[in-house]
């Protein structure tokens, strides 16, 4: 089928402004008379606040106010952010205070806010707010947090267990009891921070004429923020507008509503002046949510042929000091673990543990890479011991294509059955293995070893839940200018969301994307919605946009059929005109069509049709659609320095139908980079006292251009039957298999020494210790 825009490598609508320096990120917005906020943050991981004296700060020239929790309480119905997703398994409710005033539980927690003429002065004044602390012992390691007699993260708690649940299905004990082989290992996995290049920030202003509170925020979820703020302030929803201007990356943490957003909004009300706060990178390290440590004990039961009989184990998850989102990360980890494979019985016992550290919420992948890592490591362990090729043991266990749709034995966090909807996982792996030259690698490896070079190859499969429902609203309207206005609750943070929606809508309405004006993430422009997370927007907003565009198309053709006196079935839209197919001279512009439906006082509308040309859709899709892929990674390990270099990545990806191949490639390659960072470099360190050890980008290492290996990326397109476009989410896919595949490759490179890789990141110091232990002498 030929298409006008769908499936094309178009340029992005976002780019002209971004390339010219004319985009508008939140710190680019200037409002006359605005003041600047800076936050006083806890220097202790755990302490009682004995006294707080703002007098010296207030006395500084240029300081307008110093607000504390007490001050905010007078203006809000709640002084805590109740944002946790519902779940029955919580044992403690730990909602964050907006500003804490009794007991601080992590370094970086906001205690007070200074508001001044100038951000420099505001930061000066922060150091003049005098706080007396009674320092309490802190819990930094989630394993120690559960040990008998452990001190508590919150003084009023009886222990540090915030939630406990078991995920699984089938008769695990029988599966293991009857198994020919059982293999088990312990794993430590650490993912760090998301580190969008733009930190957080927001600007609040109260309109002097209509008293509407507007909050511009670098957020992935402006509509959720608007709802929350209206509830918190006891205002009607229409009087609170939250919008995301250009957002410089999200990657997870910006989906959370933050204390600073509430505090800045309240400050703007209290002072009746616009207030801006821009987070700096150091603050980002200690106040923006992170992912962090998971400790796994896992076992796999297999038969003599390497067929999986069951997987079981336990997971200890570092939750941080508060619940800022929910149990999403550990739930994602244990859900993703078995997805790609036929695992007849499964049980994972999960303990979610409080620590005196920054709250944990999803970072790109949301726990799924960790679950995949455990499964893939177990398969490598079984393969090695049973002397089965690593690709072969996977091939024997992948969910076969003819089993689709394949119902897993468990449900999502929302109770929705997990059903793999489409895809050919074995063919996808076969593609990757073929492209990577898997079979030829041992010969290359031998040749390299003869030269003293230690190279290795590894692989990992993944299946990823995408398109989290229930819906995302989209409205499509033909404006009287002839331009097509699209508004949605979906939020853009760099993924080309506007381009994606314009491609879908333009496909139906003339094929010129530049005629489609897309507004994302503005609570004043759309009634309901969620925002950007969980690789959901193309699936959810894309589906709504498609159906709304079809309705608008139908209406345009109906109207034009009256105006042109032609049968609607003979009409088509091209560019800015509706024309009679086969008689291109018989046409009418979209502008004229739109104007006809605005109506004129006293005159009938064409064909007595309903006024206006617009449609709003909320396509509801509860079930997630599952994307899949396979990565093969090659590495070189330098025995002298214990440095690992990723030398090649082959990635075969199936995300259903592709709307814009260039955007999809960009999403996946970017996420592969993130995955390599997680595998080798990124570590958010804390001392035993809960003090963060890595609070700048020289200590915390992000991938740079010189670490990126050549990437061979290819796509399969297995359309999902779950939505009208056949699309699946892609934003997180690239990160999923990479840590597991890198670990597999490093282990392969070091196979002569029997080194086992049971952790990520694989830091040089850790690998050096493993090499020493294995008796490797350089």
């Amino acid at each position, binding site marked *: 089928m030929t298409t006008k825009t769908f499936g094309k490598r178009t340029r*992005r609508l976002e780019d002209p402004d971004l390339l010219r320096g004319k985009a508008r990120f939140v*710190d*680019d917005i200037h409002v006359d008379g605005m003041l600047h906020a800076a936050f006083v943050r806890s220097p202790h991981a755990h302490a009682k606040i004995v006294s707080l004296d703002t007098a010296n700060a207030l006395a500084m020239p240029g300081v307008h106010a110093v607000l504390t929790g007490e001050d905010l309480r007078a203006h809000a119905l709640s002084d805590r952010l109740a944002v946790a997703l519902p779940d029955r398994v919580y044992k403690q409710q730990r909602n964050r205070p907006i500003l804490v005033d009794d007991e601080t539980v992590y370094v970086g927690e906001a205690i007070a806010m200074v508001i001044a003429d100038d951000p420099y002065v505001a930061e000066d004044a922060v150091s003049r707010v005098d706080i007396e602390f009674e320092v309490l012992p802190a819990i930094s390691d989630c394993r120690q947090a559960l040990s008998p007699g452990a001190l508590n993260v919150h003084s009023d708690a009886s222990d540090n267990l915030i939630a406990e649940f078991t995920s699984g299905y089938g008769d695990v004990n029988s599966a293991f009891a009857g198994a020919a082989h059982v293999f088990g290992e312990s794993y430590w996995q650490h993912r760090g921070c998301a580190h969008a290049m733009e930190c957080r920030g927001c600007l609040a202003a109260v309109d002097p004429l209509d008293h509407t509170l507007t909050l511009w925020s670098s957020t992935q979820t402006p509509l959720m923020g608007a709802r929350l703020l209206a509830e918190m302030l006891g205002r009607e929803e229409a009087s609170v507008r939250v919008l995301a201007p250009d957002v410089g*990356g999200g990657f997870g943490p910006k989906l959370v509503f933050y204390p600073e957003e509430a505090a800045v909004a309240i400050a703007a009300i209290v002072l009746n002046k616009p207030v801006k706060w821009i987070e700096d*990178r150091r603050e980002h390290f200690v106040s923006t949510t992170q992912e962090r440590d998971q400790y796994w004990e896992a076992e796999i039961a297999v038969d003599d042929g390497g067929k999986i009989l069951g997987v079981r184990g336990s997971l200890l998850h570092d939750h941080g000091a508060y619940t800022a989102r929910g149990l999403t990360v550990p739930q994602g980890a244990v859900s993703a673990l078995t997805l790609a494979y036929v695992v007849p019985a499964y049980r994972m016992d999960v303990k979610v543990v409080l620590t005196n550290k920054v709250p944990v919420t999803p970072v790109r992948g949301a726990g799924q890479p960790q679950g995949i890592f455990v499964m893939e490591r177990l398969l490598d362990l079984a393969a090695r011991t049973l002397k089965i090729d690593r690709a072969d043991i996977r091939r024997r266990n992948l969910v076969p294509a003819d089993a689709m749709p394949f119902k897993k034995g468990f449900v999502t966090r929302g109770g929705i059955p997990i059903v793999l909807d489409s895809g050919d996982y074995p063919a996808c792996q076969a593609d990757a293995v073929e492209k990577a030259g898997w079979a030829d690698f041992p010969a290359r490896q031998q040749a390299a070893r003869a030269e003293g070079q230690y190279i290795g190859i590894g692989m990992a499969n993944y299946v990823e839940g995408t398109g989290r429902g229930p819906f995302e609203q989209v409205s499509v309207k033909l404006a009287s200018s002839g331009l097509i206005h699209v508004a949605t609750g979906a939020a853009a943070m760099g993924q080309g969301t506007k381009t994606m929606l314009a491609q879908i809508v333009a496909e139906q309405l003339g094929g010129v994307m530049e005629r489609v004006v897309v507004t994302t993430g503005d609570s004043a422009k759309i009634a309901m919605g969620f925002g950007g997370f969980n690789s959901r927007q193309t699936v959810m907003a894309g589906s709504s946009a498609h159906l709304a565009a079809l309705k608008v198309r139908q209406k345009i053709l109906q109207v034009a059929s009256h105006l042109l006196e032609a049968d609607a079935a003979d009409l088509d839209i091209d560019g800015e005109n509706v024309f009679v197919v086969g008689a291109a001279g018989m046409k009418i512009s979209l502008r004229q069509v739109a104007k006809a439906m605005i109506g004129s006082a006293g005159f009938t509308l064409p064909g007595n049709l309903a006024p206006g040309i617009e449609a709003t859709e909320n396509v509801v899709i509860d079930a997630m659609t599952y994307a899949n892929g396979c990565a093969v990674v090659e590495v070189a390990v330098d025995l002298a320095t214990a440095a690992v270099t990723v030398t090649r990545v082959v990635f075969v990806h199936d995300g259903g139908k592709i709307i814009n191949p260039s955007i999809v490639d*960009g999403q996946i*390659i*970017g996420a592969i980079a993130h995955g390599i960072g997680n595998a080798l470099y990124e570590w958010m360190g804390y001392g035993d006292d809960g003090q963060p050890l890595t609070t700048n980008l*020289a200590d915390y290492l992000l991938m740079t*251009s010189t670490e990126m290996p050549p990437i061979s990326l290819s796509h399969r397109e297995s359309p999902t039957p779950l939505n009208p476009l056949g699309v699946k989410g892609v934003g997180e896919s690239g990160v999923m298999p990479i840590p597991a595949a890198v670990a597999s490759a490093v282990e392969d490179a070091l196979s002569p020494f029997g080194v086992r890789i049971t952790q990520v990141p694989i830091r040089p110091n850790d690998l050096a210790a493993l090499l020493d232990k294995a008796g490797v002498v350089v």
Partner: protein
Amino acid sequence: MDQRRITIGVNGTSFSETVSTRTTLADFLRHQLRLTGTHLGCEHGVCGACTVLLDGRSARSCLMLAVQADGHQITTVEGLESKDGVLHPLQQAFADHHGLQCGFCTPGMLTTLVELLRDNPDPSEAEVRMAISGNLCRCTGYQSIVTATLDAAKRMRTEHPA
């Protein structure tokens, strides 16, 4: 606060301004001149988003004070397109090859690469990667940036052969 009068050329226009001595060049450009194309990603000189050209050489505007730029010529991302609004070949190549996603690191990438292609009109892929090794991008994985740069270099060599 201690203040000074400075004169700085920015994108070909001369500005005489009174500035606080502790104001960084980045904040001066962004908030005093309202040229917000230059971005701040870390404010400690690692991420490279704030890179501008100072007398033609790349410099981190977060690590300089505005007063240090007194008497110098600055080029920011806003100064890369031609007077009649035609994108610089690098900007055009970034658009063609999706060399950006969120666009936050892009101004620093562009200014850094303008310098590279001026000094080395025919760089290898490795040279491009080295040139931007001090510019962090969290979105793209750098590949599309490298592809765009090599294409821009080719276009520039064709348009203005040495």
